[in-house]
């Protein structure tokens, strides 16, 4: 990591657990550790990609950073301010710098409001006057390629790709510094995916946005990210810059994920690592390393000791006993 880059977001030891089955007597009270001790930084103008299976806590991490969910423990600092300690009003003032792009753009728009009303809403909330609002909205929809005569239409009159572009326009309306994109292309077909991803990178170049890009699709993550974090069952298992992660994945889980990317070359031998079993329940995660039940290299130590988060190579973090032992 280049020391000249400015650290915009720093997440330290972030934890979130949800109580389930809580009743009067709390007999069956249990908790799900959706995010368990995750730390990373995001640098200004860059994109951190978060990848993992569904249910691994990547979306929860995004919402915790934006303070849409209150963390159980840990801190999130944005531009040097700890967001978890801000008062309600101070947090509201910061919120305009922190925005979210949703996976399903149709449900994220009020079905009874025109696109124009929906785009106006964040600007009104922060007291922009009507002349400025109109100017900003026209610039925005122009940037995302929606004709201005469509402004008075309702969400159900648009296609999925158009709606996601509107969703992006709305997230960027307040000129935020940091945007969490929660699987923004997962519900779209391939050609539209490329369009949305290009739009996001173009806007990033133009306005120096910082993204946290959440996806389960490794090729999308590869295309978008400067750094990539791999999550498994609420924990981050590996974090590195893109090239080093794709060239030398260290964690067995990352290796398995990368080997699953289809390669468009029939002559190339495929060496897929097949993971056995299912992802365990987060209510009762395996002891020690959470990946050990599915890891092809698991040893005794993996069941007893939680692997440490170590910077094995420069700017390349991994939590795995096997890899760490091999390096010693």
């Amino acid at each position, binding site marked *: 990591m280049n020391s000249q880059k400015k650290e915009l977001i720093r997440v330290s030891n972030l934890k979130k657990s949800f109580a389930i089955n809580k009743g009067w007597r709390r007999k069956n009270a249990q908790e799900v550790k959706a995010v368990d001790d995750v730390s990373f930084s995001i640098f200004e103008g860059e994109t951190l990609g978060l990848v993992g299976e569904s249910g691994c806590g990547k979306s929860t991490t995004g919402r915790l950073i*934006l303070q*849409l969910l209150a963390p159980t423990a840990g801190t999130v600092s944005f531009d040097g301010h700890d967001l978890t300690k801000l008062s309600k009003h101070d947090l*509201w003032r910061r*919120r*305009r710098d*922190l*925005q*979210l792009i*949703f996976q*399903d753009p149709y*449900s*994220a*728009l*009020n*079905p*009874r*409001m*025109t696109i124009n009303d929906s785009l106006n*809403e*964040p600007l009104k*909330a*922060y007291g922009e006057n009507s002349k400025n609002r109109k100017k900003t909205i026209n610039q925005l929809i122009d940037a995302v390629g929606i004709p201005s005569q469509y402004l008075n239409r*309702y969400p*159900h009159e648009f296609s999925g790709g158009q709606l996601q572009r509107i969703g992006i326009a*709305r997230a960027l*309306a*307040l000129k935020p510094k940091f945007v969490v994109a929660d699987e923004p292309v997962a519900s779209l077909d391939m050609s539209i995916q490329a369009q949305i991803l290009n739009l996001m990178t173009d806007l990033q170049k133009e306005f120096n946005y910082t993204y946290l890009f959440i996806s389960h699709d490794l090729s999308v993550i590869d295309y978008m990210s400067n750094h990539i974090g791999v999550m498994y069952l609420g924990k981050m298992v590996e974090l590195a810059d893109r090239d080093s992660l794709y060239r030398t994945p260290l964690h067995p889980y990352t290796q398995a994920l990368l080997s699953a990317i289809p390669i468009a070359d029939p002559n190339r031998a495929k060496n897929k690592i097949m993971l056995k079993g299912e992802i365990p329940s987060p209510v009762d995660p395996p002891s020690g390393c959470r990946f050990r039940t599915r890891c092809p290299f698991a040893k005794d130590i993996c069941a007893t000791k939680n692997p440490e988060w170590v910077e094995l190579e420069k700017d390349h973090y991994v939590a795995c006993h096997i890899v760490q032992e091999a390096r010693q």
Partner: protein
Amino acid sequence: MIKIWDRFRHNPAAVGGLLFILLLIASALLAKQVAPQSPYAMSTTARLTGPSAVHWFGTDQFGRDIFSRIIYGSRISLQVGIIAVGFSFVLGTLMGVIAGYAGGWIDQIISRITDILFALPDILLALVIMAILGPSLNNLMLAIGIVYTPIFSRIARGAVLNIRDSLFIEAAYSMGVKQYKILLRHLLPNILSPLIVQITLSFAFAILAEASLSFLGLGVSPDTPSWGIMLSSAKDWMELSWWTAVFPGLAITLAVLSFNVVGDGLRDALDPRINNGQ
């Protein structure tokens, strides 16, 4: 607003219903001018006479002109319908929205109160309230209003629970929209459809409840022209004189039907996803 009216306009049944309601309101306001005779004037010679040029809808057992009584009766019926249902809609929706939005112990308390009100039969509950408050038109409207409050509360709560965790609510919050604005602009418009349907249904029940309570002597006094009283007192004569029951019954039916079609039309006009063939 203009858009909503534009969509409403294209629904012929709803427009017809609206016209009839406007006619009712006009007749209620101008009863003195419109009614051909006094609704109280009795006549021993013209008892139970059928429809004729003088008495368009015939006369009742005291020789009173039924047409005039129906016109005066629209005052009571509209008043009861609008005020009692308005009361239960406002109070019930407020309770339901608070219960659904706040959750936790607030929800528990409000939901248990509505459960208790639900457990008592409608008419019995209204009877108890009227017995405590004493018979008068205002108390009658209040009693009917209280009886129908839990229905609105429960519908509103269910609708709020359905909408509360929607992504567009989270989206609005994440963009810095204030809580009360989220309630007014995102939550309320999206729970309105089932409530509008319930308003139109309750309106019919309210008119009938007024009739039942008046019949039991707890509403307005028996000589007051009210559609409910007219209908219930006609039950002794309708075998011989069909007009005593048919015309007040027709008035109630048409009023209820009008409110129903207007409610349906309004619900469709408010929902941009429904295209009314434009």
